[in-house]
C-alpha cells in the first residue's frame, strides 16, 4: 500500500469524527488571528446545517468587522447600514413568516448607533435571533471606545483609559434587554474554549428553535476578544477577557421563557 492510499483510508468517511459544514464557505476569512468572529460564524453555520434550514435562513450583517459575514456563511444575506440590522430583520421576518431571520452585530453597531433599533425590535418581540458580539471596542475603525469598553480600558479615543465620569459607564445592554417583555431567551456566552463553544452552539440551537416555534426574540451576547484593538496577543487577549470582561459581563442565561 502506498502512503496516499493509506491516508485516504484513514480519512475515509466512516473514520471521520469532525468535518467542516458545507454551509461555511471556503472563502478565506479576513479576521485577525484569534478573533472571535470566525468561531461564531462557524457555530452559526453548523447550527443552520444541522437544523436543515439553509434555504430558509436570512442573515443580516452589520457595519463592523463582520460586515463581510456574507462571504462566509452560505445563505441569503442583507447588508445593513450601521446599527439598523434589527429594522431590516423586523420587516424580513414579518413579510416572510416561516423564515429564520437573524442579525449579527458588534457592540458599536448594536449598543451605540443602533441602540434604538435593537431596543424596539426586542420590545416588539420580533420573531428573530440576535447575535451580539461584545469585544468592548470598535474593531473595524481601529480600536476606538465602544459603549461596552471597560472602565480604565485604553482605546484609540480613551488613550488614558476610559474615565466613566467623562464617558459614562460600560453598558450592560443585555441586562437591559432581558427586562423587556418582548424577549424570550436572553443569554451571555463566550467562545474561548471548546466547552464554551459547545454551550454557545446549544444556545444558538435553542434560539433558532424559538424562531421555529414563533416564540419571539432570542438574544445571544457573545463576549469576545479583539486582539488588534486591544493590542494584545490572542492568548493574552483571552486571559484579559476572562479576568476583566467576565467579571463585569458575567456569563450565563438571564432569561429563558
Amino acid at each position, binding site marked *: 500500500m502506498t502512503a496516499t492510499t493509506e491516508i485516504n483510508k484513514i480519512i475515509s468517511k466512516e473514520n471521520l469524527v469532525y468535518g467542516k459544514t458545507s454551509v461555511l464557505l471556503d472563502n478565506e476569512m479576513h479576521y485577525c488571528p484569534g478573533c472571535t468572529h470566525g468561531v461564531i460564524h462557524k457555530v452559526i453555520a453548523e447550527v443552520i446545517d444541522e437544523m436543515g434550514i439553509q*434555504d430558509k435562513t436570512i442573515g443580516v450583517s452589520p457595519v463592523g468587522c463582520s460586515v463581510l459575514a456574507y462571504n462566509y456563511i*452560505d445563505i*441569503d444575506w*442583507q447588508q*445593513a447600514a450601521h446599527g*439598523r440590522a434589527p429594522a431590516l430583520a423586523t*420587516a*424580513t421576518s414579518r*413579510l416572510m413568516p416561516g423564515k429564520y431571520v437573524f442579525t449579527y452585530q458588534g457592540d458599536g453597531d448594536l449598543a451605540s448607533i443602533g441602540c434604538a433599533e435593537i*431596543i424596539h425590535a426586542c420590545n416588539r418581540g420580533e420573531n428573530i435571533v440576535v447575535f451580539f458580539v461584545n469585544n468592548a471596542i470598535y474593531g473595524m475603525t481601529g480600536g476606538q471606545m465602544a459603549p461596552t469598553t471597560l472602565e480604565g480600558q485604553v482605546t484609540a479615543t480613551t488613550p488614558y483609559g476610559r474615565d466613566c465620569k467623562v464617558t459614562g459607564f460600560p453598558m450592560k445592554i443585555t441586562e437591559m434587554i432581558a427586562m423587556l417583555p418582548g424577549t424570550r431567551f436572553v443569554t451571555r456566552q463566550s467562545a474561548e474554549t471548546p466547552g464554551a463553544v459547545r454551550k454557545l452552539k446549544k444556545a444558538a440551537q435553542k434560539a433558532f428553535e424559538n424562531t421555529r416555534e414563533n416564540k419571539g426574540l432570542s438574544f445571544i451576547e457573545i463576549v469576545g476578544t479583539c486582539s488588534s484593538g486591544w493590542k494584545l496577543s490572542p492568548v493574552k487577549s483571552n486571559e484579559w477577557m476572562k479576568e476583566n470582561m467576565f467579571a463585569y459581563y458575567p456569563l450565563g442565561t438571564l432569561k429563558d421563557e
Partner: protein
Amino acid sequence: MGDVRLMKGNEVIAEAAIRCGCDGYFGYPITPQSEIMETLMIRRPQEETGMVVLQAESEVAAINMVYGGASCGKKVMTSSSSPGISLKAEGITYLAGAELPALIVNIVRGGPGLGTIQPAQSDYFQAVKGGGHGDYKLIVLAPASVQEMNDFVDLSFKLAFKYLNPAMILSDGVIGQMMEKVELSDFKPRWTAEEIKKISGSWATIGKTADRERNISTSLDLDSAKQEIFNHKLQAKYRAMEENEVRFEKIACDDAEYLFVAYGSSARICQKAVEQAREKGIKVGLLRPITLFPYPTKAIQEMLKDVKGILSVEMSAGQMVEDVRLAVNGKVPVEHFGRYGGIIPTPEEVVEALEQKILGK
C-alpha cells in the same frame, strides 16, 4: 365608471397602496402626512390582503425596514415629511446602492429645520439632486391632483421594479390634505412567493436553494475598480430612465409666447394663472414636469423656438429653476417666482410676477 370617491390625497396614497398589492408599509408620524399611516391602520389591510403595516420607532428604522422588505423582493413603502426624509436619507442611498425597489412618499413641508407644517416645495434638490451621499438618483414623480396620488403609487412600484431603484412621490400638504374626486384603481393581488421567485429570484433574499448561489443585498464593494464599474452600471440605468421615462404635461402651449414651468401644486395654481393671463391677452402656456427625475429637459428645449421668456414657479426660494436654466442654456430669459415658508402663492400673484419679471411691465 370604477370606484369613484371624494378623498384626501394622503388617504388615497394609503388606499392605492393596498389596491396595488403593496406588501408592507413602515412609517413614523409627522404632519402633514400622518393620515397615510392612520388610514392604513383603520383599513386593516393585514386582514384583507395580508399587507403588513407597522409604526416604526423612528424614520431611520422605518426606511431600514423598507430596505429589509425590499431585499425580499416585496413591494414595500414608507412615507414622511421633510424632517423625516432627512433622517431617511441614509437608508435611501443604501437602497439605491443595493439596487432595491421601494416607494418613498414625501409630503413636503416648509423648512429648513423643524420649519412649518404648511406646504412647500423646498425639498426639490434633496429629492432630485441627492439628499444622501454618493452618485445616485431616485425616480421622482410629482402628482398634481388626488387622482395622480392614486395613479402614481402603482406607477412608482412599476418603475422601481423595472429599474431596481427606489422611487419617490414628491408632493406637499396642498395635494395631501385636499379632497378631490378620484377613481380608485382596481384591486391587484399581492405577489405570491412563486411570483416573487420568478420576478426577483435572481437577487432577492428569499432563502438560498441548492440550485443557485446565495443572494446578497449590499451596497458595499471595497475594491475601487469594481466599485467604479458598478457606478458605470448605475449611471447607465439613469441614462436609460432619461431616455424612456420622462413624463410631462403641456397646457395651452400651442400658441404660447411665454411659458410657466411648474410641478405639483404650483402647476395647479399656474393653470389658473394661465386662464387669468389669457383673459388679459397674454399668451402664456404651462409646462408641467411630472417626472422631476428624469427631467423633461428636451420638452423645454423644444418650446424655445416659440417662447420669449419663461417663469419657473415653485414654493421654494428657487430650486427647480436651475434645471430650467440648464435646459434653456441662456437662449431666452428664465426667471423664478416663489413663495415659501409655507405660503401658497395665489394665481393673481403669479400673473403679476409674469408681467413684472418676464413682460417687463
